[in-house]
């Protein structure tokens, strides 16, 4: 059977507790009903107990890292046309992360990185240059090996990311820095230290921070 849309919904069957009350009605002494205050929905209950500020920062705290993460990022841009004004760039960026131990030299193959990513870079002049930059490029990052998602640094460019990067030669005490337009929000943050010479920019950034890693089970 089909029903037309009704304005008034049918009443649901009374719950079992209602049945009990109805059944007992005749056995209750007649008396004036107690009038309770009207319900006010889901309003909060009184909470007279005074709340006290918690003594934060006193719980279990890791006071020194058990493991150290070394993040090393290096790259270069080759600008063209030679001598400028520059309109394009090509380059590379390498990212290596090591836990607890760094290789002693480039030939040291005994220490493997926990994460290694290589990017190919291409760039054209950015539409929105940074104010104090000598030049600003929209740099396309293409992963040629590795996976940025496997690295600890949460600020690595994902594959195919286009970042606005500019060279500021007078940043914080006349240092050369590559600045990044963070999130394309117009906020230029220092991203790589840089040197600029002969149409080439060399950039690098490294840091050592703590890291929590799964301990290997001893056999």
């Amino acid at each position, binding site marked *: 059977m089909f029903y037309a849309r009704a304005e008034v919904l049918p009443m649901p069957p009374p719950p079992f507790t209602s049945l009990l009350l109805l059944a007992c009605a005749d056995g209750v002494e007649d008396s004036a009903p107690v009038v309770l205050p009207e319900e006010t929905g889901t309003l909060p209950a009184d909470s007279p107990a005074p709340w006290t500020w918690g003594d934060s920062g006193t719980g279990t705290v890791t006071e020194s890292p058990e493991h150290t993460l070394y993040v090393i990022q290096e790259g270069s841009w080759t600008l063209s046309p030679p001598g400028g004004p520059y309109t394009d760039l090509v380059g590379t960026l390498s990212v290596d992360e090591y836990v607890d131990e760094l290789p002693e030299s480039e030939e040291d193959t005994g220490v493997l990185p926990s994460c290694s990513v290589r990017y190919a870079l291409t760039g054209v002049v950015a539409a929105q240059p940074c104010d104090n930059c000598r030049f600003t490029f929209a740099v396309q990052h293409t992963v040629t090996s590795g996976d940025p998602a496997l690295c600890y640094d949460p600020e690595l460019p994902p594959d195919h990311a286009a970042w606005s990067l500019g060279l500021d030669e007078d940043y914080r005490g006349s240092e050369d820095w590559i600045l990044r337009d963070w999130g394309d*929000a117009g906020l230029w943050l220092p991203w790589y230290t840089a040197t600029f010479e002969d149409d080439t920019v060399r950039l690098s950034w490294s840091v050592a921070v703590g890291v929590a890693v799964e301990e290997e089970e001893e056999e």
Partner: protein
Amino acid sequence: MIPLALLFLVNCAPDPAAPNLPETEAPTLSLPPDLDSIDFATTYQDALIRAASLDVRGPWAAHAETLQGLEAGCPDVYAGAPDLDSEVGDGGYSWSDRCSRADQTSFGGWMWWSNTLASEGDRADAAGSTVTGQRDLEGDATISTAAADVLFRFNGESHDTLSRVEAPDYLRWTWSSEVLGDASGSLLGEDWRADVYLYAVGDDAGASGVELRGNVYTPGALIAERFDSIAVDLSFATPETTAPEGCALEPSGWIAVRDADAWWYDLVLAPRTTDTSAVADPDEPWSACDGCGTLYVRGLPQTEREVCLDFSFLWDYLITPPEPAEFALSLRDLLPEAP
């Protein structure tokens, strides 16, 4: 077979041996003697402003301020959470330590943060751009000066998400913020304990729709020099965006304030559209769309004390979304001279 209900009928017969209990009067609740002196309209307006102003930006900015001038080793910074047992999100950065910097600023506890901002398209183009940002801050930490003055203390978590679509002569944004915990310290401005959820949508003219719910406790800054707590569950839209069957004069829901005696003063406004009990009884005073609500004190209706507010203050840029740049907190900015 005897019906189950009939069995209970048999059991419910009066017991002649039962004692006759004396009749008792309905319990009564006393009301504050100075009820007439309370300016409820101003009180609820101030309460709404305070609750709507409590979002992620406060603790986020205060925490970021404490990290300026970060020294190597104080506090120790971690990629991701400081330990694998932390129930925080993936990625991000954190610090965990008990230490003092050279300037005697001391850090105790741990904080974890994560922030992303992604942009697609060009806002100068007709197709426009879409910006999506998210930030999370969790922890249990106290940062103090050498004189033991608390700069920032936080125990809890806070998150917000921003989506902004922008094109020439067009802006549309949505923003949700959630704070859960307690925070204090001079960098914060006002001490609070709160669980507040705020969701707002808007355009270049400001917010056009708001949902606000949760609880706020501000012991050091009483509202109307009397109320230390707010509880709220409201949703509201501007007249331009209110549905024809909606009410543009007042929010739906309720707001309550609590005084030092732990007495709650509730203002019940238009019923929620999902509140079927209200729909079933449209003659209830709080059902009317008139910019006025029904006051309840200790749960007792004060029908002779109707409280009316001009809620247009809600749209006077009280609720503004964060700028995308506010989502930034980069380790590179904190450690620009890292080796």
